[in-house]
């Protein structure tokens, strides 16, 4: 896939490699780099995924990085109905409507 100048894209770069990172990090963090992903408008005339490109971000900064997505999709969603939660509504409503002590407001 190819992106053209002015398209909304996402770039990736490594900010700190593992040996440049802060001290006292948990093991799982220490062994991986600190990575960055930023979106902006492509400055290069053409580019394909994996190319090192330059973008202009919404704040007007020009930064370079590896092109990883063109017009990136928002992938988070509403999820699936959760069986463990879906009965909570009917359950609490039932309790509310049961005749009980202490009904006087």
């Amino acid at each position, binding site marked *: 896939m190819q992106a053209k100048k002015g398209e909304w894209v996402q770039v990736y770069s490594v*900010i*700190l490699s593992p040996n*440049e*990172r*802060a001290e006292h*990090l*948990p093991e*799982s*963090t220490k062994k*991986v*780099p*600190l*990575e*960055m*992903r*930023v*979106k*902006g408008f492509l400055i290069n005339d053409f580019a394909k995924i994996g190319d090192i490109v330059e973008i202009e*971000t*919404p*704040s*007007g*900064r020009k930064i370079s990085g590896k092109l990883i997505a063109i017009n990136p999709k*928002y*992938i*988070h*969603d*509403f*999820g*699936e*109905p*959760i069986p*463990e*939660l879906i009965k*909570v*509504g009917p*359950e*609490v*409503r039932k*309790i*509310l409507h*049961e005749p*009980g*002590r*202490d009904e006087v407001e």
Partner: protein
Amino acid sequence: MNRYSYQAVMKRKNEIMKKSVGIDYEKFRVEGIAFDYERMMKEVGYSIEEVRKIQDEVSVGRTPLVELKNITKLVRKISKPGKGARIFIKDEACNPSGSFKDRRASLSVYHAKKKGYKGVIAATSGNYGAAVASQAAKRFLKCIIIQETYDSRGIGQPEILEKGRACEAYGAEVVQLSVGPELFYYSLLLLEQTGYFNASLYTPFAIAGIETLGYEIVEQLWERERRFPDVVVVTHAGGGNLTGTVRGLLKAGAKDTEIIAASVNLKGLHMASDEDFNRKSFTTGHTGFGIPFAVFPDRSDVPINAARPLRYMDRYVLVTQGEVFYVTEMLAQLEGMQRGPAGNTSLAAAIAIARELDKDKIVVVQETEYTGAGKLPSAQLTFAKKMGIEIKRGDPIKEDKPGERIVIPEHPSQLGVIEVNLLDLKRSYIKETMKRNNKHNFSEKELEFISEDLRLPIEAVTQFIDEEKEGKSNAKGR
């Protein structure tokens, strides 16, 4: 050394922070670790009248105070006769970007504009990012939000992805980083390169902006009920929400209201761990911020943190992830209010607390937040399951295991709280203060400061310090 390396930038920390918030914090230092907190809040912050004016300009605040009549009724059904306080909730989701964070952002952005900054930067994975982006949009300032978003596999937290999307919707640049505390380093670097204002969550502006929340609670309740709240429950993370709200309550005259802080219990999960990052379903309002920021507030991105939670809390309780998801469902199904789970942390605690109180008491929950894709029990729990977390019904406190198991209550009577011993926290505060400042002896003024910061008599402070010294020498002797 490379000028942009981690070490080099961290060395310029104070210089960068000073320029980017425009506050000469040293002015407020009294002696050693002691500083004049109230003077700082007065001279740097804004008065409640000024804050209201600024917030009215941008339609922030004056959110409804809603009585949760059906939840109160349910609580009374499961309480002992005569028990079950009335529960009210401050519907902060009605703010422009959907949370109380607009109050903080409105002041920071106003101040940045007034001082001639061209843009604002905030390092936050929370609702504050959207709030700053929204306020910056209103006041024509550039905006960069730096988030901790992904683990090393490139998997993003749904809640944080949603907040990133919201920031983009308001026109902000979103810098998404992988897990690690070096987010601070990178924000310093960006502040230095852009010359933008640091819209930190911990400046006096960011705290003064929340005071209206506490103030409004008192005003609205007084108008309806002619009384002050008996209890206000506040979700506690970095301490700003608590500090600002309580300062507002006090300014409105609610001096006898009990302040209960509440956080989601994430014990055992390491906040800087790449592995643990996506094993939690709450990205804020949890113990990973709540406890460290209570015992050492000055770990923030400004030299002196204006959020001082131990000055303002009377009680600190924890709730579990499963409890918060359960009450989020209750709020939607019994009150017709669909709101984001993280904002319902204090509601979960309030329900447990209301059960113990007499019927004529009033408990106020001081926030709600917006909800949507990524920020819903269904989105968060679908993600948790994918990450291998077990979801089950059962006892939400006894069976809870953060990072491994989330337990949804089977009955509302299972909603409860875990008490945090405040004296233990105060002792830890002293320990951290000694350790981080490499200090064993404190002047009279420093002792007075600690005593105020902990709301603890000087004798108790001295005793804790002595015990800490003794503990150290015992450890050495062994």
